[in-house]
């Protein structure tokens, strides 16, 4: 039986605690009384994955069984989440591969010839063939990729987009033409965190900029409280409106999966354990890893982290009607990640790890680090933010990984030109978004290379808008001072220095909460 998450109160018995900071981690001595939110331990996984998938396909929620939806002569499209999920990349075989193989087996038995597989990467970068192959597996890749029937979605391919109409709030719904004109769209998702899945899968994953701009903007995102609570997120409300419109045009058979919390493989398992329970072996592993990282060249360090494959286990798979499936999925995600936290604190501390959704096999540039800390981790709450309005956020990351010119070309210009002018998300959106979103060079790189869309860095900044609006001070421990300053924040060498700097905002004896994340958690804040 796995133990639930809990809130530790640091006392004189507490050993130093792990805080992630980019391609490394530090051991931090938190002030006595600091609250540390630990995620639940990994839940029990399904005993037989193949059987669980089969059962979900044959006994879907609020839908006919998949075999009865398949017939000869139909157009079947299978869309799936891209490499931004799960994090880190799942150890092979990926759960999407196992599901797609079963869906294709049923399609073959039903005599379906017209099948296409689309990676739902929206404005994310195109995946390489190797990355696609890792997700769908060798059999699927060999059967579809050479014929061009397994491909990345291209949100700038005007000829292959379909405008399905507008929602009652005037939001354009424009998605992949192939998906929209299919007799059946099967979506295979990995619901790593509570913000994933539901109508966000098709409505965002297969949508163009014309659609995305309605919810990926500062106005909507600053009012999404939080992204991890789709019922209170304006972004999700918009996606839900779009999803319901899509449902009127195409039959969607949604397959959602939930995973446990096993994010670190051997020899990094100690990072998932509660520090005071570290065995001698865990302590030795930690010391060895820390020493190894300290002498390793940057390239080796990058490889050590990015070659990690998470030994995730499947905790559930549900298929059928989008909203009904998603309710079940969210319940499973909450069981795995929800931790009750009593009250808000003055200071919220978070360690930004080496990996986020947008730097798989790439670098965590300062904008992505901001998005990870102030976007994803800050928003890992339900109810109220963990930190009070007007409080301070302390983040750990060196902010020194630079930019990946291949994958993040528009980020460089966003950092050099836009952030040099202003860091206000609303002003940035108003003044610069269109220019970046329609820049032909960025569009060219997005379509033909492996670059994120020109507008993507704006979205990253908007993700952080709610946090920037909510707190008065953001300090990066161990961060490059010049970079932090460009981002509109401050840097400190140590936690003590950061608290000293934050004392102007929160006083000399603030209440502090540290989110011990990863593995993933959602703080269920009761006020």
């Amino acid at each position, binding site marked *: 039986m796995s133990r639930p998450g*809990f809130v*530790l109160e640091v006392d004189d018995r507490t050993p130093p605690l792990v805080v992630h900071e980019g391609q490394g981690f530090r051991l931090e001595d938190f002030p006595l009384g600091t609250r540390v939110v630990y995620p639940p331990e990994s839940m029990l996984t399904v005993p037989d994955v193949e059987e669980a998938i089969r059962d979900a396909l044959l006994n879907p929620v609020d839908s006919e069984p998949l075999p009865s939806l398949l017939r000869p002569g139909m157009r079947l499209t299978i869309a799936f989440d891209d490499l931004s999920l799960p994090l880190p990349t799942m150890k092979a075989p990926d759960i999407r591969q196992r599901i797609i193989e079963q869906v294709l087996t049923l399609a073959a038995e039903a005599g379906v010839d017209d099948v296409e597989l689309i990676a739902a990467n929206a404005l994310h970068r195109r995946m390489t063939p190797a990355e696609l192959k890792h997700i769908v597996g060798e059999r699927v890749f060999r059967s579809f990729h050479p014929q061009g029937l397994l491909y990345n979605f291209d949100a700038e391919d005007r000829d292959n987009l379909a405008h399905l109409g507008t929602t009652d709030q005037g939001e354009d719904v424009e998605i992949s033409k192939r998906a929209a004109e299919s007799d059946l769209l099967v979506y295979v998702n990995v619901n790593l965190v509570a913000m994933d899945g539901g109508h966000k899968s098709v409505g965002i994953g297969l949508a163009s900029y014309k659609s995305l701009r309605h919810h990926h903007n500062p106005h909507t995102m600053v009012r999404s409280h939080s992204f991890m609570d789709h019922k209170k997120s304006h972004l999700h409300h918009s996606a839900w409106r779009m999803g319901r419109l899509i449902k009127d045009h195409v039959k969607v058979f949604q397959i959602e999966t939930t995973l446990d919390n096993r994010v670190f493989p051997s020899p990094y398992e100690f990072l998932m354990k509660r520090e005071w329970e570290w065995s001698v072996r865990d302590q030795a592993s930690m010391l060895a890893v820390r020493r190894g990282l300290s002498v390793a060249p940057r390239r080796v360090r990058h490889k050590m982290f990015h070659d990690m494959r998470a030994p995730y286990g499947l905790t559930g798979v549900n298929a059928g009607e989008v909203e009904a499936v998603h309710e079940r999925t969210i319940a499973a995600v909450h069981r795995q990640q929800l931790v009750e936290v009593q009250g808000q604190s003055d200071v919220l501390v978070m360690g930004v790890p080496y990996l986020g959704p947008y730097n798989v096999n790439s670098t965590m540039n300062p904008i992505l680090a901001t998005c990870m800390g102030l976007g994803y981790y800050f928003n890992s709450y339900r109810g109220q933010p963990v930190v009070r309005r007007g409080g301070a956020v302390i983040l750990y990351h060196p902010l020194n990984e630079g930019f990946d010119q291949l994958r993040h070309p528009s980020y460089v210009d966003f950092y050099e030109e836009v952030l040099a002018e202003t860091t206000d998300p609303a002003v940035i959106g108003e003044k610069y978004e269109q220019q970046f979103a329609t820049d032909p060079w960025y569009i060219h790189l997005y379509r033909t290379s492996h670059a994120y869309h020109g507008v993507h860095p704006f979205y990253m900044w908007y993700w952080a808008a709610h946090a920037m609006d909510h707190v008065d001070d953001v300090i990066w421990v161990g961060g490059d001072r010049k970079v932090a300053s460009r981002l509109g924040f401050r840097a400190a060498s140590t936690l003590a220095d950061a608290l000293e700097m934050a004392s102007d905002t929160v006083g000399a004896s603030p209440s502090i909460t540290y989110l011990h994340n990863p593995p993933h958690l959602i703080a269920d804040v009761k006020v």
Partner: protein
Amino acid sequence: MNVVREGVEDVRRVARGWRWGRRSLVPRSAEPWVEPVEQTVFGTDWARRRAGRVAREVAQKGGLEPVFRSQVRTRVEGVDVLSRIDGPVIFVANHASHLDTPLILLSLPDEWRRRTAVAAAADYFFDTWWRAVGSALLFNTFPIDRRGGAMSATPGEVLADGWSLVVFPEGTRSQDGWTGRFRLGAAYLACEHGIPVVPIAHRGTFAAMPRGQNWPSPGRRQLTIRFGEPLRPEPDESPRSFAPKIRDAVASLLDEESSTWWEARRRAAAGAIPDPSGPDVATWRRVWAQSASPQANGSRRAAWRR
């Protein structure tokens, strides 16, 4: 050089944070979430065979005793009661420190020491193989489960083999040096096997090395130990009625320590033995009283002295 220095600093932090050489601690707020550990059964029969006995003799006389005597001073009284009885017996003592066991063993005459085993908490002394081997070899411990459960050897089997036992009926070391509630285990063994109980009272171990300390305080603190007259359960006496007699005997010996044998006898006869659990006063006063070591030569004249 930086790499080496940082490495050394890392090791030091881990050694300090994870209390190398000492038992690790769980933060108080995390205690409700500690998983019950699956108890491994470590056999200790080997420690009571010939090779184990020889190794223990060398370890106790060549290592334990010189170190022990270099760190503390002892005053042993009443040990001549052992010359009037034959083993096996059950030595029952108050429990305030890890020094209690070596104090008792090293106060026994050699022929008794060599035939005495110590009942030790399985969850504490037998949670790792090296701790189990170390304590079994040095102190002739065998595990007893404080929560109940299967063990490698039962106290009854050890008694049946002719070994005397040291039992601390409080089950754990005192938090403040005063004597706690006595459990029924020792009384049960005595009644079940018809074996006499030799009460023991000692003082000074709490002052010298309380909970949380893994080495005696400097200054060769004084310890005292006093053996009492053997108690024999009446035929058909229940452990429940015998246990209070054991506690009274220990309490009377503690009284004797702070007064005289005669005064303690008279108080015992009048049913006015001072409560060994101490006065109902503020915690700090209870700890304060026990953190003073006994006088080097005793303020009163002892009845017996070795």
